Structures are given as structure tokens and as C-alpha cells.
């Protein structure tokens, strides 16, 4: 839609398409509010986005560019009596830092390279080297740049700039038994990737799943079960038995341990006096006193409660209970992952918003707010085209709020993230389509706990023959400093060439992202009807964003239902329809009406649903069942 076509009046203007903003948009639109939802970026979902390999390369490039000095235009001509201007920040680049890329696979297809000849050829034919270190890349970068797209060139140069001093020419020449996927293949098959900037999972009974079901937004998405919970222990990746079937099948637990584990898990469901007595004492202490043995204690502490040293017994048991409640709803683990990546979820809510009349504009921003001095309320915004758009409420992603206007109780924290494309799973099993959640306890005191999610191609997030691994932890240093030691211990890279049984890393990306958990919705130096949505937090769940969205909605419309179930298309009464008429005539009439006004949208949606079902995730079906149940109860 061209900018000049934008209506000049809305109930709510929302800037930023992250999860919280999108949920807010859907909620308002659903109850009849006029919503304008815009994002300065060219893609949906802000820091919650998922990218194809190629668009991720573009994203990386953008984050290497110097932020361009903002030209502050003077919009005071648009000011009315008693109004003042608040400029918004035009760049959200502060939320991402320390982007570093490493490529460990050869730049070109290596059809011609027979394994035995590699060593001899290496010096002469650069393209044949199986493992390219960033150094060798930098040497070759000039030649290659001609062939590559500009953005890739950027990426390579970046890689060479950020080369670790330890990345020497220590290349493994003895390997290459595995047929490796080349960088060119990754680029060629780039569309097979959907690489998430955040790494989270949906708890089967978490607030996001509840919201998706309640609002009927689930019809726009499909999910896969996380198939197993793993942990890293004594230098090995082990499966964590958490469901009854897992415990039964586990080979690492003795029968007595099996009984103790099942017993402990069953006893967790309801609070006992013993548990109450430990309440504020460390959870670790409570577990220790249960005499479960070291094995079980590790599983229960790190993988099921996902606790740290500071976790109290009360908190530990609460998260254990949540874990258990979520088990078995959709499968053997408590988690779901959206097919095509997490970036789908905000988009699904945007879609719901659009279905109910919300208007969307990407590559479009708000430059400043017009504030009525007397009331300290934002009356209107001025968009990037200089149009004045009046609104009653303004919701904004925190990245667009100038730093000096934000109030935070604690200094901003960062998350360390790594994304690896690997050639095999960290724990091979009978099925090569496993989705694994891996908990990695701190390697040493003071080190962060790392959360790892390994995705397989059937989640539609990576190309066949690869796995996509997401690592997340609270930052201590840069993402590279925090996570690369773990990567080199668990995977095979140029630094750890002797880890023959571990999966090889083909490509990896490190970056830091601002942790949104420390920022409040209100309390900033902003007009009273402006609400700030923080970016992604470091938690595994989506509770933070969903809670934030609901809170904003309730502040503005305390009487309204938050995301009530969307009606079925056939139950909607269109203008001019006689409410009391029933039967066949009505159906015809309805059909006509649909085609006449807004019907296209519904139709399109129906088509889309059909397509998704064909692609057929088992979980889709189950979601559907759940949905059906909700519909029955609808009033």
C-alpha cells in the first residue's frame, strides 16, 4: 500500500513487529480497534525473525555497516497549538552486537576432489581445501569476491576481520571421509533455511500455546514436537529420560534409578510438607537430600527444572511441575517448535490482525510523536513519509525509543547467541529427524548455563543433510567468548579436528542480542499513552512477551476480552445480511457477500490452510483437535 493512501486516523499505532507488538496488534484488531502496524525493517518479526540463509547474510551485512547518521528533519510545521515533538530513534542497531561469522566448509562444490589427493592439492587449489579457516578465506577473498554476491563478500571480509588469533592453519587433513556440504551448496539451498534470531520453544501448556488455541491463531501455524531432551555431561551427550516411555527405554538408568525418578516426578505434582519445609533453601540441597544419586540429580536439576545454583526449592519445584504438566500433551517432551521457525509466530498474529482489518506497512516508520503538553498524551505520530496520523495509543518496540528516555532498574544485559549449521546430529539415533533440546551445565563456576536447540530438516529450518544448532546463554563476554569454547568441545571445527565422532560445523554465526527481560512497559520518559514492548528475553518460554502484550491490552481496554476465539468464516454476518434468515437462501447470500466484500481474504485463508495440512505435520492435527474443542465451547 502506498504511503499516501494511509488513513490519517487510527485507534492504535504500533511500531515494530516483534512477538509482543504483534499479539497486541491482533488483540486490538480482534475487538474492533483500528490498528496501524508498521515496521521500519523490510521483514516481519524484528529480533524474533527467521531468515533464509541468504537473507541472514544480508542481515549480517546490515549489522556490520556503520549506522548512518540520522538526518533529523524538522517536523515542527506539523505541530498544532499546545503540542510538542518527541523524536524516536531511527535505528535499532544497538540491540545486536559482536556479529562474527566463521565458515568451515569449502567455498565451492568439491565434486572433483577425491579424498586422498586433498593434501597435495591444498597449496595450489584453494577451492579444494576441505576446511577453510577464516584466514585462508581472507587470503582468497579477493579472488572470490568477483564471483560472489556483494553481501557475501562483506560477510567474508567480516569473517577475516574477526578471525580468532587461535584460528591457525592447523587444518585437519586426515579427515574428509564424510562428504561435506560446500558453502556454495548452502547458498544454493539457502531457501531451505529458516534461521531464528532468538531460540525459544513453546511449552505445551504455556501461555503462548494457550493463547494460540484460545484465539484460533493456531490455524495459521503448524508445530513439531521436540522429540528428546538431551544434556551434556562428563564430555558426553546423553538423553534425559523424562516421559514414562523414556524412563522405560533408558539404558543408562538402573531399574532402581528408574523407580526413584518416576517416584520423584510423581511426588512433585502435588506439594508436600517436606517440599514446603525446603521452600527458600536451594533446590540443589532439596534434591541432594532426596538421595536420588548423582545421575538423577543432574537430570532433574539441569534438564527438567533447568535450575541454577541460586534457584530456590520453591522455584525449582514450580518449574519441574510446569515441565511435567506440559509432558504428554502433544508428545514425549513438553515442548513444541513451529515448523518454518519461530518467526512464524509473530506473523500469525499479524495475520489475525489483518484479517480483522489491521493495516500493515513494512519499510515504514514513525519519526516522531506529537504530544499534547497539557495532558502529556500522544495525539498523533508523524510517519517516515511525513504524514500526520492521529492515534489514541501508541505501542513501540523498545529499540525505537531513544536511550535517554528509557528508564531501567538494572543496566542492560545481553544474550550470547550462536547459530551453527552442522552436518549431523550431536546424538545420532535410529531416526535422523530428531528435534533436541540440550541443557549444558556451566563448564566451570561462574560460567553461564548454555541452552542448545538442535533442529532437523523436517522442521523446515535447514536443508537436507544438515542440522541447525542454536546456542543461547546470558552474556559474560562477547558471544564468541562465551560460546566458542563449548562449540569446539562439542563439535568438530578446525580447532578441534580430532573430534572425529562429533558433528562438523559447516558454518557458524555468533552475536549478542539485548536481553529484553529487564525493561518495563511503563515508567519511561514518554507520554502516558505510549507503551514500550521489550525485545526477546533470554528465557526458554514466551511467557514474558505474552504477559507484556496482555498487560498493555488490559491497560488500554480493561473491559475487553483478550484475543477471544476468532469465529469460523461461515458464522460471520456480513453487512446487509438478514440476521434472522436461515437456510439455503442465506448460504447463497453469504457466498455473494463474501465475494463482494472482504471475502477474498477468507477464501485465501482457507486455501492456505489446505496447503499446510498437505505438508502434513502430525502436530498440526493435534493442534487442530484442540482447536475444535475450543470451538465447541465457544458462545
Amino acid at each position, binding site marked *: 500500500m502506498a504511503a499516501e493512501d494511509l488513513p490519517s486516523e487510527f485507534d492504535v499505532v504500533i511500531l515494530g513487529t516483534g512477538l509482543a507488538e504483534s499479539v497486541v496488534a491482533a488483540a486490538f484488531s480482534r475487538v474492533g480497534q483500528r490498528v496501524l502496524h508498521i515496521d521500519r525493517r523490510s521483514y516481519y518479526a524484528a529480533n524474533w525473525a527467521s531468515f533464509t540463509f541468504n537473507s541472514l547474510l544480508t542481515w549480517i551485512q546490515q549489522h556490520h555497516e556503520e549506522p548512518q547518521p540520522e538526518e533529523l528533519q524538522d517536523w515542527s510545521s506539523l505541530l498544532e497549538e499546545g503540542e510538542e515533538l518527541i523524536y524516536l530513534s531511527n535505528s535499532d542497531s544497538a540491540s545486536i552486537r559482536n556479529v562474527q561469522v566463521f565458515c568451515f566448509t569449502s567455498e565451492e562444490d568439491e565434486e572433483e576432489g577425491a579424498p586422498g589427493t586433498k593434501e597435495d592439492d591444498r597449496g595450489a587449489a584453494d577451492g579444494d581445501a576441505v576446511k577453510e579457516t577464516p584466514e585462508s578465506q581472507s587470503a582468497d577473498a579477493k579472488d572470490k569476491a568477483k564471483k560472489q554476491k556483494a553481501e557475501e563478500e562483506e560477510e567474508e571480509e567480516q569473517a577475516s576481520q574477526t578471525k580468532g588469533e587461535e584460528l591457525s592453519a592447523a587444518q585437519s587433513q586426515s579427515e574428509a571421509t564424510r562428504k561435506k556440504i560446500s558453502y556454495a551448496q548452502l547458498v544454493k539451498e539457502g531457501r531451505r533455511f529458516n534461521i531464528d534470531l532468538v531460540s525459544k520453544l513453546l511449552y505445551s501448556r504455556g501461555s503462548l500455546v494457550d493463547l494460540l488455541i484460545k484465539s484460533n491463531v493456531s490455524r495459521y501455524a503448524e508445530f513439531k514436537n521436540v522429540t528428546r531432551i538431551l544434556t551434556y555431561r562428563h564430555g558426553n551427550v546423553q538423553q534425559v529420560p523424562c516421559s514414562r516411555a523414556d524412563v522405560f527405554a533408558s539404558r543408562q538408568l538402573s531399574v532402581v534409578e528408574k523407580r526413584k525418578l518416576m517416584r520423584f516426578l510423581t511426588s512433585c505434582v502435588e506439594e508436600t510438607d517436606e517440599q514446603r519445609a525446603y521452600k527458600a533453601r536451594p533446590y540443589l540441597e532439596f534434591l541432594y537430600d532426596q538421595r536420588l544419586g548423582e545421575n538423577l540429580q543432574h537430570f532433574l536439576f539441569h534438564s527438567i527444572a533447568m535450575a541454577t545454583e541460586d534457584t530456590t526449592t520453591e522455584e525449582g519445584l514450580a518449574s519441574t511441575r510446569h515441565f511435567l504438566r506440559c509432558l504428554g500433551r502433544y508428545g514425549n517432551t513438553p515442548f513444541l517448535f513451529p515448523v518454518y521457525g519461530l518467526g512464524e509466530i509473530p506473523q500469525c498474529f499479524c495475520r489475525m490482525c489483518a484479517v480483522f482489518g489491521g493495516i500493515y506497512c513494512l519499510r515504514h516508520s514513525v519519526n516522531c510523536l506529537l504530544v499534547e503538553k497539557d495532558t502529556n498524551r500522544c495525539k498523533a505520530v508523524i510517519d517516515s513519509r511525513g504524514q500526520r496520523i492521529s492515534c489514541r495509543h501508541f505501542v513501540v518496540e523498545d529499540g525505537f525509543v531513544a536511550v535517554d528516555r528509557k528508564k531501567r532498574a538494572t543496566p542492560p544485559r545481553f544474550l550470547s547467541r550462536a547459530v551453527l549449521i552442522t552436518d549431523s546430529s550431536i546424538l545420532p539415533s535410529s531416526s535422523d529427524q530428531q528435534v533436541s533440546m540440550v541443557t549444558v551445565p556451566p563448564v566451570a563456576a561462574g560460567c553461564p548455563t548454555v541452552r542448545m536447540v538442535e533442529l532437523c530438516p523436517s522442521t523446515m529450518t535447514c536443508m537436507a543433510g544438515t542440522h541447525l544448532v542454536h546456542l543461547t546463554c546470558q552474556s559474560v563476554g562477547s558471544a564468541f567468548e562465551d560460546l566458542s569454547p563449548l562449540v569446539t568441545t562439542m563439535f568438530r571445527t578446525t580447532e578441534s579436528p580430532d573430534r572425529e565422532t562429533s558433528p562438523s560445523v559447516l558454518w557458524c554465526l555468533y552475536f549478542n542480542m539485548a536481553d529484553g527481560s529487564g525493561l518495563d512497559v511503563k515508567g519511561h520518559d514518554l507520554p502516558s499513552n505510549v507503551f514500550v514492548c521489550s525485545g526477546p528475553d533470554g528465557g526458554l518460554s514466551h511467557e514474558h512477551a505474552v504477559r507484556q502484550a496482555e498487560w498493555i491490552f488490559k491497560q488500554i481496554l480493561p473491559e475487553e476480552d483478550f484475543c477471544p476465539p476468532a469465529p469460523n468464516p461461515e*458464522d460471520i454476518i456480513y453487512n446487509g445480511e438478514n440476521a434472522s434468515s436461515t437456510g439455503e437462501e442465506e448460504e447463497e447470500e453469504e457466498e455473494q457477500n463474501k465475494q463482494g466484500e472482504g471475502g477474498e481474504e477468507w477464501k485465501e485463508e482457507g486455501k492456505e490452510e489446505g496447503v499446510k495440512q498437505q505438508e502434513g505435520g502430525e502436530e498440526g492435527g493435534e493442534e487442530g483437535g484442540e482447536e475444535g474443542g475450543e470451538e465447541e465451547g465457544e458462545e
Partner: protein
Amino acid sequence: MHGRVKVKSTAQQEEEKRKEREKKLKIYVAARDACFSKRKEGVWDDGALQITQQLLSSNPDFGTLWNYRREILMHLETVKDEDEVQKIYEAELSFLESCLKVNPKSYGSWHHRGWVSTRLPRPDWAKELGLCDRCLSLDDRNFHCWDYRRMVVKKSGVPVDRELAFTDRLIGSNFSNYSSWHYRSTLLPLLHPESPEPLPSPRRPPPRSSPPASPQNHSHRVCEAQLLKEYELVQNAFFTDPNDQSAWFYYRWLLGRAEREEMISCVLVSREEETVTVAFSRPVDAQPGGLMLLLDGQPQTVEWRSVPPRFKHSPVWICDLPPGTISDVTNEHNLTVHWMERHAHRDCALYTGRTESWCRDSATDQELFRSELSVEKTSVLQSELQSCKQLQELEPLNKWCLLTIILLMRALDPLGYEKETLAHFQTLREVDLMRSAYYSDLCSKFMIENTVLKMEYAEVRVFSISDKKLTTLCHLDQLLLVTHMNLSSNQLQRLPPQFSMLQCLEVLEAENNLIEDLEGVFHLPRLEEVLLKNNKISTLADLRPLASCPKLKRLDLRGNPVSGLEEVEAALTELLPSVVDLLL
């Protein structure tokens, strides 16, 4: 508020739904009537096939229509060539698939599928197997599918090891599945038979030449190496969830549940009564001509009657010898009883001067009562008992664990573990109140078995089991030779018909019970004394069976409701003229 989506109200929706249902019903009824009239007229054409298909796809449980469809299909078989028939049946299979989606547990659809599959000229069993697997992945306990699958497996000859792997998979995903465990129990003996011979016929007669003929039947057993693996698997299941009974049942099957071989366990000759009594290891029907009696080599024409007389199958049979044949004490006689059906026989010699004689296997020789779990080796049972005890330590109140421990203890050493067994039974009764009567009966059975064993070790004919909380009597066929029985201070309510098997009984002590029924004290030729003080006998009619015991002299009925009745003494004197010592 403006812009809000208007949604039809519930009443409106209801009305629409109702109308739609009405319309559907009309169409359905019309089609059904059309179908019935076509069938009456004997129309077997494509049109009929189509109309039944429409009806069945909305209601696959309409049995008559499936029958009609089969008639049509069988007719079409006679008029079409093989390729066409193949096509028709293939279409039928895909139609059935859609019916199964409507109702995955439709008897009609599964039966019809089975029928079609067997008639298909070129069946695609792999596809059928795939369908079953899909169905079972949706509901791993759909027994219709299990049934159909067994048929498919049989017809297509799927190798046994692949089927075993299939049960592995299903048990792995959810072990609360009787079908999987049971299927396993049928596959294992085929894949890992106990004997080195690949597939012993289950009907193979037990080898006669082998040393002491074992009472257990060894067919359907599994080799030891595999058994040990199975023990491990099933232990994993019951340690993971001790409250899941399917694993425990499989465990009991693994531990071996042998049945006693049918045999003549005892022959008793009585000079005075001129009778021969034969006891069998299991109830048999010896009528007519099932048994042949040779007296000193001469076949005798005798009439066998079962004890108690109403039982068509009984472990005890009696015949009267022709009067005078053995009455002379100075004569010695040799008897042989032939059991025609089993080609078995047993000899018994009645020596000079003896009034009776018998020949039998004692319960201790046969290890009669260990048959529940006794097939396995002692060392294996011992280690299984250890793991169950380990579980019991963690789950002291788990009933399945307790019961299994009791059974294992009985298999190992019934007398040695008696005290522990009783304690476990007490716990069982407390933790599983609903089944406390069952546990009491089972405990009674075990106590009786122990008493029998003790009696046999002592080589006496006195059976004494007082103050053991007995609630029921059993194994009475083992007590053929008992002369003196003490059942006092238990909780017995009746002396059942089987009680009349105690052909040698002279004295019955049954004070302080809850007996209200004496049905089994019937035709006991030697019974002289019956002590029933403090029981619940309330009417004269309850005492009537005693009238058939010719030698009854002493009867104690003190503390029974019946003794308070008016003129009871006179009535009893009339009913039981032989009684000289009556206590009321």
C-alpha cells in the same frame, strides 16, 4: 463499537444445525429404504454398490449393508474377469479406509476388510500391514486392528523376528499394552524355543523315557538366554510404573505357569465298603467306559460314579465292586485301573489281613502346589525374588509387587516362607481393600497346600488347620485318605460339595466357624463324629446331607441357631437315627 465482527448467535446456529440434520436424515432414510428394496429384488449391480457405499460411508456400522455388499461382490466375481475383480476389490479397500477414518473401531468395516483381503486375487499385504501400523500409531490399543493385523501377518508370512521387533517398538512407546505383551508371548516360543529342535509341535507327547516324569508341560517355553532378556525388559517396565498391571501379567507368564499333566494320582480299595476310589490330578469325565477295572486280571463290570455325584467332571470317581468279591480278609487281590483316554493305568495290591489299601503319588513327590511359577530354575527364581524385594523396599504398598513376591516365595520354598507370606497377605488385604476377600481365599489356598505338605512329610492321615483365618476350602481331592480333619476356629461359611471327596473321613472338627451350609458332608461312608459347635446352622434342612452318612454317631450343634428351634431334638432323632450322642 464500530468495525466489530458480527457473529451469528448460538440459537441461530442451533437452528441451522437442526435443519441440516433433518435434511441429512431424510436423505439417509430414503437411501436405506431403496437399498432394502433392491436387496429384496435381488439386484446385484453397480448402482446397489454405489448406494450402499453412500450409506456406509456415513454409518459404517450398518451390518446388513455390508452383508448386501458382499452378496453383490460375490455375484460380480462370477461375471467379471480377474483384472476387473482385482480393481473392484482394490476400490473396496480404499473405500474401507475412508470408513475406518469415520470409525476406527467399526466391527463391520474391519470384518469386511478381512473378507475383501482374502478374496482379492492379488493381495498387497505390505500395504495392509502399513495400514495397520498407521492405525496402531494413532491408537496402539485398537484391538480390531490387532486382530486384522494378525490375519495379515499370517497370510503374508511376515517373519517372526520382524514381528517381535514390532512389539519392541510398541512396548517402547507405551508399555501399558496387553496386546503387545501378549503378542510377544506367542512369538518368543517360536523364535527362541527352549529345546534345540527348531519348532517342537505343541502336541508332542512328553518323552516317556526321560527320568522322573515331570508334572509340568514344557511346550511353549522359551530358551533361557532370551528369558533373561525378557526379565530385564519387563523389570524395566514394572520399576518404571509398578501400578501398571500389563507388565506384571507378562512377568507371571515368563516365570512359567505350568499345568499339571492329567494322571491317576491315587487308587484306594476298601474291603469293608467293597469300593474302589480313583483320584485324578485334574477333574475328568470317566463316563462311560473311560475307566476299566481289572481285579486279579479279570475285567469287572462296574459302574463309575463321580464324587460329588452332580459333577460331570470330577477328580474323584468311585465304583462298587460286585458284592463278596473282596470281602474275605484272608484273600489277597491285585487291582489295576486303566484310564483308556490317556492309556494310563495304576496298580494296587490289597494284601491279606488288610481292610484297605492304596497306591498313589504323594503331594511332596509331585511338588503339586508349585505349579504356578515352578517351571523356572531355582537360581532364576531366587534372583527374581531379589529384584522384587528391591522394588518392594521402594514401594512397600504396591500390591502387584507383593503378590508376585508371594508367588515367587511359594515357588521357592512354601513352608520356609510361610511367615513372610502371611505378613504380605495381611498388607495386601489392607492396601487393596476391594480385593481383600480374594486375597483371603488365595491365602487359604496356600495355607491348605502347606498343611497338606506338612501332613505328607509327617506321613499321617490327620489334616489339622485350625485358627488360620481360612475362608475357603480347596484341594479336597488331595485329602482322599484323611481320617481326621480339624478345621476349627476359621472363617469358613460352608463345606462345599467337594467335601464329599473325603471318603475316609471319620472325625470332622469344625467348631468356631461361620458354617451355615453342610452340602458337602454327604455320602461319607466312615464319618462318625461331626463337631459343629458355634457355627451358623439355622434350619433343620441344612442338616439333611448328614442323613446320607450311615455311621454318624456323634453330633455337636451347640451354639448354632438351629439348636434353639422348638422340638429340634425329636426332629433330629428322626432325621439322623444313627446319632447316639447329640449335643444341642
